[in-house]
């Protein structure tokens, strides 16, 4: 069930994107993931008395890149503010973030749901620092004798990691749209090289603002914010169960309390977060330690020049240059890796590119993607570590196009390449004799033999039972050990049987 029929869901997402910098946003400590606890938390990160923040240029550049990629306005002046609240993973007692004057304003992200394109508007994107992490469960193992059930451990390695918080308008109308948007954003930030996209490591996390309203009404319902969804699956499930929860409350005559909630995947439910009780009063004010961030036009222009071709533009080019369908072009531009793989494969095929593009696309979107999905579930990674190189796939496609390989043989070659049994397509064809039996000279005697030996099927075919031909094709294929093109065999058979 997507929604109860007479209800509408309204969703806005806040994505927290960890920017791919070497050092933190306000300090010179490293941002590498997985270091020993607190070994990458310098004096600024642990908020020693007297320390001060200095802004990382690269983090700002990442924000500009993103703004350009979503066609937003880059604010010439933006301001860092302090968001004040107490939490052990927040060493200063405030988070440095942008509030009234963010660096990126507006912009849109296109998504495709049920083959229809929809444009999702962005409110803003702003720079801020990440908080540290609390460790609860592992502590029990670390401190078995210290009553550790009553303690939490704090690791501040992540504190100060640069984040770009990307806030959408409440333009999303279903969990599916929310996931499509989150995936599009995830793909985009990797595409423009500002985030590694690793969701397991928390590089890309999403908060969902969810409200419901009766179908046909226009006023927004009271919303709840579900925090820290670090997988697309959890995002989808969290929205579904939060919407169901809200609908049930309203249908029973209750009303929704605006609050921050946490998704519990084990219980498949959301629950209110106690730690966000002060959420209504963050006492934002401009950070006196940081002067306004000004971004000159020539900086923006320089960043724009260094920006890679964006997926939307590339999609259009794939359609016009390669004659691909909009759908194929969209899929092939879903990540920089797959796009690069596709273009390398087509280029290796030779001219005219357009004649090779479609078969290359089919192989990449079909066999290749299926295997990648099996190998790697979510992040869509893998094209760079994929066992078949573009040069190999292009040779495979060439051998199909020139008739050397039937589709069945091609599949065999593909399997051999994937498993690593073979490296060179042509060598494999030679060694295993995988050359397709083709041409009427080679096939005609076999066709004649099969016609002679299968009188029953021949009679049925002549009586108008078209399916009888399939049995005859099968016999010829068997005789060639599968090395013929079934379509060519069928045509020859038909020619013989009808010509008599």
């Amino acid at each position, binding site marked *: 069930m997507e929604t109860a029929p007479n209800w509408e869901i309204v969703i806005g997402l806040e994505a927290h994107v960890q920017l791919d910098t070497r050092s933190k946003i306000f300090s010179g400590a490293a941002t590498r993931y997985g270091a020993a606890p607190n070994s990458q938390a310098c004096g600024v990160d642990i908020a020693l008395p007297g320390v001060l923040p200095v802004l990382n240029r690269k983090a700002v550049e990442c924000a500009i890149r993103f703004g350009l990629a979503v066609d937003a306005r880059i604010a010439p002046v933006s301001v860092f503010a302090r968001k004040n609240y107490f939490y052990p993973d927040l060493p200063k007692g405030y988070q440095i973030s942008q509030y009234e004057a963010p660096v990126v304003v507006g912009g849109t992200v296109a998504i495709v749901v049920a083959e229809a394109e929809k444009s999702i508007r962005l409110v803003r994107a702003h720079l801020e620092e990440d908080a540290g992490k609390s460790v609860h469960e592992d502590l029990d193992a670390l401190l078995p004798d210290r009553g550790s059930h009553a303690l939490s451990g704090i690791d*501040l390695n992540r504190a100060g990691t640069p984040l770009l918080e990307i806030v959408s308008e409440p333009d999303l109308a279903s969990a599916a749209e929310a996931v499509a948007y989150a995936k599009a954003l995830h793909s985009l930030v990797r595409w423009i090289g500002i985030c590694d996209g690793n969701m397991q490591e928390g590089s890309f996390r999403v908060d969902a603002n969810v409200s419901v309203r009766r179908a046909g009404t226009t006023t927004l319902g009271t919303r709840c914010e579900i925090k820290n969804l670090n997988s697309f699956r959890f995002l989808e499930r969290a929205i579904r169960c939060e919407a169901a929860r809200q609908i049930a409350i309203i249908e029973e005559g209750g009303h929704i309390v605006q609050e921050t909630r946490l998704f519990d995947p084990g219980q498949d439910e959301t629950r209110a977060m106690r730690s966000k009780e002060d959420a209504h009063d963050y006492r934002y004010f401009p950070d006196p330690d940081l002067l306004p961030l000004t971004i000159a036009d020539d900086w923006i222009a320089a960043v724009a020049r260094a920006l890679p071709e964006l997926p939307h533009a590339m999609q259009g080019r794939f359609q016009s240059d390669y004659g691909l369908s909009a759908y194929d072009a969209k899929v092939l531009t879903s990540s920089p890796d797959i796009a690069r793989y596709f273009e390398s494969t087509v280029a290796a095929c030779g001219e005219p590119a357009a004649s090779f593009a479609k078969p290359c696309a089919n192989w990449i979107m079909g066999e290749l993607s299926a295997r990648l999905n099996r190998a790697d579930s979510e992040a869509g990674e893998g094209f760079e570590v994929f066992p078949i190189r573009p040069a190999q796939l292009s040779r495979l496609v060439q051998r199909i196009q020139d008739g050397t390989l039937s589709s069945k043989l091609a599949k065999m070659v593909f399997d051999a390449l994937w498993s690593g049994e073979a490296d060179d397509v042509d060598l494999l064809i030679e060694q295993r004799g995988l050359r397709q039996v083709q041409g009427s000279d080679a096939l005609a005697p076999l066709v004649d033999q099969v016609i002679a030996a299968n009188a029953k099927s021949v009679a049925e075919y002549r009586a108008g039972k078209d399916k009888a031909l399939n049995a005859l094709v099968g016999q010829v294929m068997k005789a060639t050990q599968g090395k013929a093109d079934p379509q060519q065999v069928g045509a020859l058979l038909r020619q013989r049987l009808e010509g008599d």
Partner: protein
Amino acid sequence: MPTDANASTTKRLERRDVTHVARLARLALSDAEADKALDELNAIFEMIAVMAAVDTSDVLPMSHAIEMSARLRDDVVTEPDQRDAHMALAPATAAGLYLVPRIIE
């Protein structure tokens, strides 16, 4: 954005304002302390209240003593691991972690 329309709405604090603010600021306050703080704060805000009478409708707020833009640093790792020195300052640590009473999310 701030407007001057509500800039004149200064009022006396009440006891619950003091306890609310003390909680936001994570300061334990006994009843006696809260009573005393209420009187002191009201005296101070009475002194502050003269601001409300000033017309500042076309004045830009001034956040910094200098009119300058943020200076940016290069994205370079400059800080070595100083965990041991930092941990030595902390009231409670174990296994490289700072310890606090269990956090309930």
